């Protein structure tokens, strides 16, 4: 039987103010989980604390960091963890972005659950309620299954890089949960939900697009993708203004590329703040002045490059795509979580649906959401 060394981060604030490291050795088959290893060590030292229950990646209790990456202890085999360990020992720490209570147990209540509650994780039923069950289109319910796969383990919260610098950020798990209700055809408050998230400066537009939550999630929820879909509905469909210039930035960016072919950064900064003459723009530019002046002094860019449009080149011929695609009555989206990869053995890519029969539209149809009876506006 192979032997594995676990390097555990211990913490017991009642007896010792600082965390410390402890190495334990366990003898187990390589297919046993890291959780099995920790529990084996716990047999010998009952003071080791970890939260766990199902041991089958269903309950979401045993979220930890293994070799610096967040995940479920029960869902990671000892063999693969040892292979990924750079120093020989499998390093096991509590999750990040949440206060540690003891050893590997973090306080989910004060961070994770509080944020989930903030997005009203329940269905606000459309009125009048039907006498019997709601009849919902199949594809819209398929669409929410990706976010319903969330087991609330907190792995995405643990390594969210926005939350690391802005603890008030609503965060990936809660925003994925918000998408679950925004896209549910039975929910009547999609607009209200989105408005709340857009008006919160630590809400919808505080995600830095780092993909950490996508890699962290053991269930393929891809919270960042759900955040981008929320933005798509809030911004492109409902044009909800927000506290972070998010909508202006998105529109500024898209218009900028449409006009110039390449991104012209000189305009983007001002467009994102609502135009060159807006007081907010002047304030931000003033704040950035030392860097800008230094860059000009060092000839990093010239005033001509910043204010002129040296990239603009009508020959690129790209504008027609903006015109045509943005004029479509419905957006065409492909979500690989549902459609699969046609090269994967045994996979059968989903049959295309949507306004264009040649395409796969597996995203929600926000217009239908907006226009359905009972939706608030």
């Amino acid at each position, binding site marked *: 039987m192979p032997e594995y060394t676990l390097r555990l981060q211990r913490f017991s604030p009642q007896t010792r103010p600082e965390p410390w490291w402890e190495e334990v050795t366990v003898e187990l088959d390589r297919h046993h989980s890291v959780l099995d290893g920790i529990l084996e060590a716990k047999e010998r030292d009952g003071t080791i604390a970890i939260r766990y229950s199902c041991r089958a990646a269903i309950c979401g209790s045993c979220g930890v960091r293994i070799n610096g990456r967040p995940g479920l202890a029960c869902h990671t085999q000892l063999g693969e963890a040892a292979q990924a360990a750079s120093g020989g020992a499998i390093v096991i720490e509590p999750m990040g972005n949440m206060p540690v209570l003891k050893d590997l147990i973090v306080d989910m209540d004060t961070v994770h659950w509080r944020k989930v509650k903030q997005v009203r994780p329940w269905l606000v039923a459309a009125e009048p309620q039907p006498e019997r069950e709601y009849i919902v289109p199949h594809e819209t319910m398929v669409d929410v299954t990706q976010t319903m796969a969330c087991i609330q383990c907190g792995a995405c919260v643990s390594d969210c890089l926005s939350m690391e610098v802005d603890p008030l950020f609503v965060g990936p798990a809660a925003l994925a949960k918000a998408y679950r209700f925004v896209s549910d055809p039975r929910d009547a408050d999609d607009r209200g939900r989105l408005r709340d998230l857009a008006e919160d400066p630590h809400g919808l537009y505080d995600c830095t697009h780092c993909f950490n939550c996508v890699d962290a999630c053991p269930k393929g929820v891809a919270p960042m993708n759900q955040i981008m879909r929320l933005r798509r509905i809030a911004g492109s469909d409902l044009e909800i203004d927000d506290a*972070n210039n998010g909508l202006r930035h998105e529109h500024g960016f898209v218009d900028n590329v449409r006009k110039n072919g390449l991104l012209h950064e000189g305009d983007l900064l001002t467009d994102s703040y609502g135009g060159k003459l807006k007081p907010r723009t002047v304030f931000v530019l003033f704040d950035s002045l030392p860097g800008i002046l230094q860059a000009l002094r060092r000839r990093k860019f010239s005033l001509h490059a910043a204010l002129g449009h040296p990239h603009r080149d009508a020959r690129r011929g790209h504008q027609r795509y903006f015109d045509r695609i943005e004029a479509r009555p419905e957006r065409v989206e492909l979500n690989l979580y549902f459609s699969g990869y046609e090269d994967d053995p045994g996979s059968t890519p989903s049959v295309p649906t949507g306004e264009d029969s040649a395409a*796969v539209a597996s995203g929600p149809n926000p217009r239908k959401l907006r226009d359905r009876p009972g939706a608030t506006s």
Partner: protein
Amino acid sequence: MKVAYWPGCVSRGFTPELHGSMARIAPLLDLELIALDRACCTGAGVIAEHNQELADTLNARTFALAQQTDSAMMMNICSTCQGAMSECQERLDANTPYREHINANLTEERLSYEKGIVNKNLLWVLVENLGLDELRSRVRRPLAGLKVGPFYGCYIVRPRDRLDITEDRPRDRYLHQVIEALGGTVTDYAGVYKCCGFPIITMNREASLRQAGIHLGDAADAGADCLVVPCPLCHLNLDLQQPAAAKAVKRPLAMPVLHLPQLLGLALGLDPAELGLTRHVVRPAAVIDWSQAVVAGAPVGGH
């Protein structure tokens, strides 16, 4: 090797030294750059956030333009471009009906994307195509004594599946390997794989600058002489915004940040000025002894 070359927007805008230094090092690496003049912005994730079909069409168009050249593959010098293009390519390659739909958008220009383009960041080309041994043999001025902190940028290391990062293909270690092949010393620090904060610079400026400032400070505390980045957007937040980032984290910062082609160029024997190293906001005084124009851990102010 002939590559269809996509420099991105920022390398020709606010970080012109990146495009310039790439042009200088290309002949020294036997890379023939076939510029994709008609291609447009990859969308940097923002256009995909706005309208997925639009982003996929623009990038399919770029891929189709690249496939019209006689190049072996497509190459970029921007992590963000790599990530945005890889995301679109994943959808286009995974589903034939979807690809056909996107290609139908391109018929007016008589363009069509054929599944399976090879599109790599310069960093991947160095390790996977040129090879580290070959790179090592071309070094004229080893970066001896230079402690370099790698800063990958999010888009070139995540998501791991999409970017095909595996034990056998450790693309998340390539920057480490290249620094060592150039004779430098890798300085690991907390921010190696973190976000520079640039995507939210206009949305939550404080949080964005704190991200940049924390990583720069961590690298300084770990003893790095400089950072190297394969992404011009990271460079904007880490160099151009460094004075503001220093204010945000309330500590003085003077960390030079080099583009990957600049670091390569120094080791390949090129002159620092022609690599645009005079153009940074934070002057790379700790990297270059300007009096002799050679690479060294020169004392600050030695120029």
